């Protein structure tokens, strides 16, 4: 169970901009989608939970433990996983190295390959590739998701996992998340603009202008998003019009 209590966050800079305003949420569902317009504070919220940012005010609890001031490493060891929106490249570190680090133990090639195959990468082709500029954005995104699979923690947060992934692979991606939900028995939080991802969520939270605009079950929230003329999420409404 993840609890955010009165979380506010302001970005550093000459003019302090308040990105998140007094957010209180508790998440215990197995699959929660966070959506809303760009700049609404979604990625910031995810980074606060992962420990990349520290809230200006408020408290974050994970399974009752106050993690507000805990380091990224300690949160990761406690069972929080975070898939970056823009995965990081490393010269010299191979796909197998990264998956091994994620798994937290020595794993064989065959085990590493299972995670890669799940995200639709031909394992044999990728296992020894360096995570450098030779990989495309879509390939990096899939490897990023594979690292989260390898970690297998109870709380996994994905920041726009669909970005850069071709439509053909998109079906598989949905299957990956559904499978994760079945096997991990924890919570998956996905930041997404894709109707098809929202469609498999139990609960949808709409963040807009740093505040929770809507929060409820999929059946309650999805029709609202699809109807509202651009206010909530233009990407979705454009899709709905088509």
């Amino acid at each position, binding site marked *: 169970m993840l609890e955010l209590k009165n979380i506010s966050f302001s970005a550093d800079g000459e003019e302090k901009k308040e990105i998140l305003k007094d957010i209180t949420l508790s998440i215990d569902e197995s699959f929660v989608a966070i959506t809303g317009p760009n700049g609404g504070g979604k990625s910031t919220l995810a980074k606060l939970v992962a420990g990349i940012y520290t809230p200006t005010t408020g408290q974050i609890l994970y399974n009752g433990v106050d993690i507000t001031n805990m380091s990224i*490493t300690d949160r990761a060891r406690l069972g*929080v996983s975070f898939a970056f929106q823009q995965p990081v490249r490393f*010269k010299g570190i191979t796909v197998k190295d990264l998956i091994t*680090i994620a798994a937290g133990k020595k794993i064989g090639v065959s085990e590493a390959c299972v995670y890669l195959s799940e995200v639709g990468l031909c394992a044999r082709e990728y296992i020894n590739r360096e995570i450098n500029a030779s990989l495309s954005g879509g390939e990096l995104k899939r490897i990023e998701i594979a690292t989260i699979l390898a970690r297998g923690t109870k709380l996994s947060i994905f920041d726009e996992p669909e970005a850069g992934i071709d439509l053909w692979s998109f079906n598989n991606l949905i299957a990956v998340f559904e499978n994760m939900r079945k096997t991990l028995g924890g919570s998956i939080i996905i930041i997404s603009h894709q109707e098809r991802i929202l469609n498999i969520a139990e609960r949808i939270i709409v963040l807009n202008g740093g505040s929770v605009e809507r929060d409820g079950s999929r059946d309650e929230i999805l029709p609202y998003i699809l109807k509202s003329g651009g206010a909530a999420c233009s990407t979705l409404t454009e899709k709905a019009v088509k």
Partner: protein
Amino acid sequence: MDAIQKTLLEKIAGLHDVPQGAYNIRANGKLDSRKTTDNIDIVTKEDKPGIDIIIKPGTKNESVHIPVLLSETGLHDLVYNDFYIGEGADVTIVAGCGIHNGGKEESAHDGIHSFHLAKNAKLKYIEKHYGEGDGEGKNLMNPTTVVELDEGAHMEMETSQIKGIDSTLRKTTATLGARASLVIHESIMTHGMQSATTDFSVSLNGEDSNANVVSRSVAKGKSRQLFLSCIDGNNRCAGHTECDAIIMDEASVSAVPKITANDVNASLIHEAAIGKIAGEQLMKLMTLGLSEKEAEEKIVDGFLK
């Protein structure tokens, strides 16, 4: 060979005992042991310290190990090694120098290696430098490498200096004939008050010759590094030089790539980048459960691999 020398041998050549194939082990300035094969001859020079390694034309899939081990403090070792690789041969040479300096005095090894590759010969040359010691004496290494590639010859050179060398000046010069190719991968890590200078000079003289000089380095502590790389394109040729460095703590790194085209069909590229470890790289590895220090080590190890 004593225990210290055996450790050094393992560090520089990954060997637990005497190697397979031909070898020449030099310990504390003297010949320790040597083995030749039908195709590979090793002869002690008469006019100066060092050896001639002569590989018969057409020799395939054979290797030569020529480690140098220094375990006495205060020893200044200087050798001239000449390698003659016969036409059409395809061999691997593993060289390296390990210093264990347990005393107060300076230990030094200066090796001058000259490679003469005949027509269509292929060589993979691996060189590792390693220093250790619990004394205050400094470990110095100044390797000079001279490469002459005849028509169609190909040489791949991998050099690494990962630990324990206080001061190094590495000088490599190469001249390439028609269709000859040269690939150099260098990796260096310096720490403490160490200093390292590498100086590459490649002349692409033959038509369709090509060279790729790549250096990866990490500078920690208060160490200093200078990377010089000069490629001259004197014919229709292709040349690429790249220096990529991670700087940490209070270290200093300079990269000075220089390319000169003396022919309208010479195609030359240089790249140089110096920077600290990207914050997001550390963060990513920390989200996978590594501490900041562990993350840093992984990034450095991968970078130098």
